[in-house]
């Protein structure tokens, strides 16, 4: 019988059925970071348990690290305590830790793929909701809670109910100036922030076939913003080419065998899906959010929604709440909204190609006066690649601060924070109230090039105009 990738990976990792009807699922790869793991190790110790397969857990530190300095102790004693706790735990339980001086540290969802740890046909768990990122490789990757981290550490498994699978086909060629980020913002806007509850999203179609791994990761990353705990793309030649030669990728004869096995996990032609959605690539425009959840998005050419034209009372009140918080006017164009901060980075858009694409256009441009612009590579690996290509210098010359790897301003756990009601043009994934560190701080999500356009103009702008994208492409 024809099966989807989800089914195949699930079946290969299902250990047994549990009394409550859930499955005990083997988690082949476990990733941990400093925020959600210390409590799990605490529970483990309380129960007197050991880590069953220490070689299948990998650790890095990302959320709390300051990005403007390297030396310890950090000015925040709690941050220092967290990194030390992780060191201690990894040491005690024999877990590989990509520490800050390893040259490999970075955001967990960037490090895994970069090191070749993330592989097709595997199950991956991490105490972080953006674990769906790893699905770009044809893995089933779950965000889990701290208690489940304990379960995975102690048993290399967790209890889980099977998900339904929705296939999302995006076909055609994206218009110039439209990126993977716009694709996922468009999908979330179309299907809603809860649209994916209970589903794994299988992204497919000619647009995804043509995507690089980094573009696929950007989309899979934000599956959770659409309510889907898991998002994946079937593995293909692009996947294998990316993995070849990475530190943890199989080598020699084992590589050929692995590729053959990986290929076999791709969804079979004609397999059944619980739902299918079709989207045309040409319908997708540069998309920005205007509200306080990632589904509140519009094309850069649209106007800010008016609660008066809401279809349901619910929708009306949520628009009102969002506009009050964002201090935006209904009916006004989103284009031209003044910004205070531009943030380029995060596990959504903090990879080499993100910086590379922006650098192409940023040369010779300057960040607008009064705008604080920071660019934060997602990992030390990305930082080193950018440096070797002179990309960091392009950003610096334009007036961006170029930082050390970490989550930075994606969330408020390190010194990079919004102040007061500052408005941030951000390449990250969440625009929730207070997300970027100030309880009244405001976030507009967009693609990296749109962030750059906002940075140089001081307002939310259409990158295609600011950087004459169409023309450049037509030449």
């Amino acid at each position: 019988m024809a099966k989807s990738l989800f089914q195949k990976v699930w079946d290969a990792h299902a250990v047994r059925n549990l009394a409550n009807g859930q499955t005990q699922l083997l988690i082949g790869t476990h990733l941990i970071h400093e925020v959600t793991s210390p409590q799990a190790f605490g529970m483990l110790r309380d129960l007197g348990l050991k880590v069953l397969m220490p070689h299948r857990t990998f650790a890095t530190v990302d959320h709390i690290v300051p990005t403007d300095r390297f030396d310890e102790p950090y000015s925040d004693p709690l941050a220092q305590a967290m990194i030390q706790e992780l060191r201690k735990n990894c040491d005690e339980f024999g877990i590989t830790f990509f520490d800050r001086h390893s040259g490999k540290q970075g955001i967990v969802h960037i490090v895994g793929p970069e090191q070749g740890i993330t592989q097709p046909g595997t199950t991956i768990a991490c105490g972080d909701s953006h674990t769906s990122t790893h699905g770009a490789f044809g893995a089933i990757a779950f965000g889990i809670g701290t208690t489940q981290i304990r379960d995975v550490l102690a048993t290399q498994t967790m209890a889980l109910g099977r998900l339904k699978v929705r296939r999302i086909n995006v076909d055609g060629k994206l218009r110039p100036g439209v990126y993977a980020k716009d694709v996922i913002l468009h999908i979330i806007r179309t299907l809603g922030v809860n649209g994916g509850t209970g589903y794994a999203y299988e992204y497919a179609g000619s647009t995804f076939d043509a995507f690089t791994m980094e573009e696929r990761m950007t989309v899979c990353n934000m599956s959770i913003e659409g309510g889907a705990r898991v998002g994946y793309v079937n593995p293909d030649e692009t996947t294998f080419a990316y993995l070849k030669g990475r530190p943890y990728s199989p080598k020699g004869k084992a590589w050929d065998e692995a590729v053959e096995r990986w290929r076999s996990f791709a969804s079979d032609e004609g397999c059944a899906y619980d739902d299918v959605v079709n989207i045309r690539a040409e319908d997708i425009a540069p998309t920005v959010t205007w509200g306080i959840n990632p589904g509140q998005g519009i094309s850069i050419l649209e106007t800010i929604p008016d609660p008066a034209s809401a279809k349901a009372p619910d929708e009306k009140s949520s628009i009102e709440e969002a506009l009050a918080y964002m201090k935006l006017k209904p009916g006004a164009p989103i284009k031209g909204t003044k910004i205070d901060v531009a943030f380029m980075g995060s596990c959504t858009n903090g990879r080499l190609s993100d910086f590379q694409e922006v650098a192409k256009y940023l040369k010779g441009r300057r960040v607008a006066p009064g705008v604080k612009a920071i660019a934060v590579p997602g990992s030390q690996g990305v930082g080193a690649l950018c440096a070797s290509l002179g990309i960091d210098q392009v950003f610096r010359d334009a007036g961006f601060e170029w930082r050390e790897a970490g989550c930075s301003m994606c969330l408020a756990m390190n010194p990079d924070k919004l102040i007061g009601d500052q408005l941030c043009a951000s390449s990250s994934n969440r625009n929730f109230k207070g997300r970027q560190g100030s309880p009244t701080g405001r976030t507009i999500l967009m693609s990296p090039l749109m962030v750059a356009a906002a940075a140089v103009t001081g307002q939310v702008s259409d990158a295609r105009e600011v950087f004459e994208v169409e023309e450049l492409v037509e030449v």
Partner: protein
Amino acid sequence: MSLEKITQVAGRAVYVPGNDIDTDRIIPARFMKCVTFDGLGEFLFYDVRKNADGTDKPHPLNEPRFKGATILLSGANFGCGSSREHAPQAIQKYGFRAMVAENFAEIFFGNCTTLGIPCATASREDIAKIAAAIEANPQTEVVVDVAKQEIRFGGQSVKATVRDAARDALVNGRWDAIGELLEGKDAVLRTAGKLPYLAA
């Protein structure tokens, strides 16, 4: 490991209205800097409960009449956002033992169940009825009956749903899976042996 069988939770309730209450709102990220969960309760809903200077904002949890409530009522899509268990932990450490909402975000729901916090869903109308009853008399005893899937309060009863797997886990004392998972060790090693990428 034997766990409590959670068939029902009875106590006073408080209604925190709103849809899409996300994990950042439940526990702002800056309070997640901790190496244990102890003490998280006091930061529950911090930014909507407190002004920058630490004084109280108007919020149901700040009202003396709702102090000591053990059941939290809210709107749709409660707990959306991050997978952080700090959110249900903060709710539990604050003193809540059960939740009622129109629906819950997936990861949040799972995290709550694992902590033994039943998350019951009820219709908006029924939640409004419960909210009205506790507004009229904050002392009203509310019973979230997990086994019977109903909520009783002030002589009324409304239908509630606790999803099958979660209900089964709660009422049979299997809401924390670790015991059963540990028992499966031999089967785990057998399955792992068939997957080349797990070789040490």
